[in-house]
């Protein structure tokens, strides 16, 4: 019996392997499990290799997991193309179509001895049972259900929903294929017990509010919830689904989606909408962020609220458009000429995307600033069960507008104590002003004076000081007095969360800081966090270890807290992080005394 299983499958485009994965997580979710799926495709638009990774567990998990428990290869050529994304290890049970001709002895997995390996006559069984090759994915689902015990009825419910629309015959064929797979599994038990622990199927009331979705869709939904009325953008993988969701839904809320001619126009239109008084947003990926840089600077100096989502992919340049990387943090914090400060937020999982997006709008509106949400391909395109989100716990903030008396002597950029100046918009009598990219005085008139420039820089930076006190945006987990510390962000943070749990199980005392507000750096909070820390890791998926470097800019990071980083398309696995933690602990042996302040 297991409480947590990771299944990886790969095949050709037509094999329907991804739709099998979808059936599986849908069923698992309905059955009350925590379910999570990532997909991966070859470069072809159609007919290339495709794969998915499904993780199902009795309790909440935080990442796609490590090496596979069960690997299903419809053919080996396709399977092997996914490399570390479908990692097979000594604990993996490997299943493949015997029609591939591969035998247990000729398994193309050099250096790996799987826990069990079984060639199944997938094609033959499917043909026999269903009378067509097209139902191979249903047969695989039957096998999986048979071996893991995952909610047979829930899977069948889902399959029926899908196929019945296309005709009784097709549905019947798939039902037979599923049954054949199920029977085959029962008749061929594995040497490893992959049976998933049973949990009580939730009642309707229990599953109310529980959803299954991906990071991009929930981000878009959050934008609508936060009051977004304008989206300007241009398609780019892996962010396009945000625009696509809004292109379906935003109109219902009086909003508009503009598919602009390019990313510059997309963000410029959003800035225009914000100038006109509406909450506005754009979403893109790295190359689009590059192009938006200039207008982003305009929003900063014109002090216009704006939410910018960057769904990171592998870079630089066109890079690896369909793979995750956390390589755009430097850009988020430092792109654009001149001195600017803009908050950078990063979700760590699908559920976070909702909170973080709402927060991004609130911060943008409160401080009249662009805010960057750094998502990544992994979070954005993975499907995950999300526990009910109580939307009533959010306060929706809108920008501070001038009072009638303020309008009598309105100065758009009044140098207030907080740095925030009430903002009017076209249509408001008495509130007219000149917005501009040029430096200006409090009234908004252009100024090239060094004194005025200093004053305005101070004002703009002052606005965001308060943000560094937002401890609710800096999650700390694990043993608060642990001598070993980790910092991680974005999709890597989930992996570290699980590593902390693994470490705890091994008796290692570790704590973990997850900044949801990645920038500006909350110096004080980190100083407290690093107090007494002897060693540790900053874990992230970029070649340079960008967060590690940025931390050092503002915080005295203890010398033995090191960067654990590597290029994208190759995410860390919890076990790897654990291994590094164990090394760190080993290196400390004898040196660790409780809470001795570090020398840094």
């Amino acid at each position: 019996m297991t409480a947590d299983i990771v299944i990886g499958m790969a095949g050709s485009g037509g094999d329907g392997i991804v739709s099998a994965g979808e059936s599986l997580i849908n069923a698992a979710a309905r059955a009350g499990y925590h379910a999570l799926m990532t997909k991966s495709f070859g470069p072809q638009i159609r007919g290339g290799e495709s794969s998915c990774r499904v993780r199902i567990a009795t309790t909440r998990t935080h990442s796609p997991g490590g090496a596979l428990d069960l690997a299903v290869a419809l053919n080996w050529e396709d399977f092997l193309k996914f490399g570390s994304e479908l990692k097979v290890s000594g604990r993996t049970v490997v299943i493949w179509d015997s029609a591939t001709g591969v035998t247990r002895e000729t398994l193309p997995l050099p250096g790996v001895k799987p826990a069990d390996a079984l060639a199944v006559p997938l094609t033959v069984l499917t043909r026999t049972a269903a009378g067509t090759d097209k139902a191979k994915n249903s047969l695989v689902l039957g096998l999986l259900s048979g071996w893991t015990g995952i909610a047979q009825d829930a899977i069948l419910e889902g399959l029926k929903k899908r196929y019945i629309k296309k005709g009784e015959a097709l549905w019947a064929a798939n039902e037979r294929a599923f049954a054949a797979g199920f029977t085959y599994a029962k008749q061929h038990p594995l040497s490893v017990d992959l049976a998933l622990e049973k949990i009580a199927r939730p009642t309707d009331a229990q599953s109310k509010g529980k959803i299954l979705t991906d990071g991009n869709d929930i981000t878009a939904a959050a934008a609508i919830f936060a009051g977004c009325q304008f989206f300007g953008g241009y398609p780019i993988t892996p962010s396009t689904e945000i625009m696509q969701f809004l292109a379906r839904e935003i109109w219902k809320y009086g909003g508009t989606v503009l598919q602009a001619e390019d990313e510059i126009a997309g963000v410029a239109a959003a800035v225009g909408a914000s100038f006109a008084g509406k909450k506005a947003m754009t979403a893109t990926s790295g190359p689009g962020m590059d192009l938006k840089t200039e207008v982003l600077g305009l929003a900063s100096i014109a002090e216009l609220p704006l939410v910018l989502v960057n769904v990171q992919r592998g870079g630089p340049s066109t890079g690896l458009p369909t793979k995750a990387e956390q390589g755009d943090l430097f850009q988020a914090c430092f792109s654009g000429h001149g001195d600017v400060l803009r908050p950078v937020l990063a979700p760590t999982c699908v559920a976070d995307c909702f909170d973080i997006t709402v927060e991004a709008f609130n911060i943008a509106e409160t401080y009249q600033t662009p805010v960057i949400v750094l998502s990544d391909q992994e979070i954005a395109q993975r499907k995950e069960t999300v526990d009910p989100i109580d939307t009533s716990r959010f306060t929706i903030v809108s920008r501070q507008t001038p009072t009638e008396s303020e309008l009598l002597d309105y100065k758009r950029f009044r140098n207030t104590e907080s740095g925030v100046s009430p903002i009017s918009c076209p249509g408001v009598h008495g509130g007219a002003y000149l917005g501009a990219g040029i430096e200006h005085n409090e009234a908004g008139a252009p100024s090239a004076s060094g004194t005025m420039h200093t004053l305005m820089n101070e004002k703009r930076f002052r606005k965001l000081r308060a943000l560094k006190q937002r401890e609710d945006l800096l999650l700390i987990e694990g043993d608060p007095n642990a001598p070993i510390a980790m910092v991680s962000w974005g999709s890597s943070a989930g992996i570290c969360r699980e590593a902390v749990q693994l470490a705890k199980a091994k008796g290692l005392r570790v704590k973990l800081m997850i900044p949801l507000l990645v920038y500006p750096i909350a110096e004080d909070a980190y100083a407290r966090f690093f107090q007494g820390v002897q060693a540790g890791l900053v874990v992230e998926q970029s070649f340079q270890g960008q967060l590690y470097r940025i931390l050092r800019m503002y915080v005295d990071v203890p010398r033995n807290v090191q960067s654990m980083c590597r290029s994208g398309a190759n995410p860390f696995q919890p076990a790897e992080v654990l291994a590094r933690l164990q090394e760190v602990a080993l290196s400390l042996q004898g040196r660790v005394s409780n809470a001795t302040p570090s020398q840094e």
Partner: protein
Amino acid sequence: MTAQLNVVSAKDFKSELKPIWCPGCGDFGVVQSIYRALANIGRPPHEIAFVSGIGCSSRIPGYTTAYGFNSVHGRSLPIAQGIKLANPELLVLCAGGDGDGFSIGAGHLPHAIRRNVDITYIVMDNQVYGLTKGQLSPTAAKGRKTVTSVYGSIERPINPLLQVLSYGAGFVAQGTPADMPGLTALVEEAIRYPGFAFVNVQSPCVTYGEEHQQMKAQKASMKSLGSLGHDPKDFLKALEWATHYGVELHTGVLYRNPEPPATYEQQIRERQNTLSRDALPRERILELFQKHA
């Protein structure tokens, strides 16, 4: 939109900021024509958003009492569209230079036009980069010598009139401050046109312009399209007249679509009205995902 605000005169649109254009710059006339046209239209300044890019000409919003947005070089049209789509009640003006609109901003023009957002776009076409002190502009004649075309330009100028016609603009006109009543009338008509309207203004640069581009030369050479018998409903004929750009100075309306199609924002409004009927309340938006689970 209170009633007492509806009576406005040209001076209500003039701001306190003193123009820093060179004495004699054509842009003085352009801003005057805008004051007057707006007064004729009668909308109060605070219901107007006036967007520009960067350039001498792009300083123009600051000299009006409207909400101004002197943005960045070349991006006035996307910003103006964002404003208009966010609040279709506003009167949205957009203005800038030939460099701003036809060089760095060239990619935005066809798209603003094909969307048919109801914006009036005024280009102060002086065939030069004024603000940066006299470089070659995309409308400068072949052979023109400037600091960046020291031995004479070797590229053909673009033809803004022909371009915007090919983009499908519903209203296309050309004016000059050498004919102030004419220019004022064109600006007014452009604003009144329900859809994207384009006015190319031959606005002389007295500092970097050439003799034959100055007001005096214009006065001597300009010919109104009306006097030439052009019917602004005739699209193919408009294309033909447009090919004269850079050769002869024709003023007036080149093309006015006799049956203005629905604007982008009208179509959006319609869509919003239809679809809002079956919207979940915002706070229940996540229920959209429940059917998947």
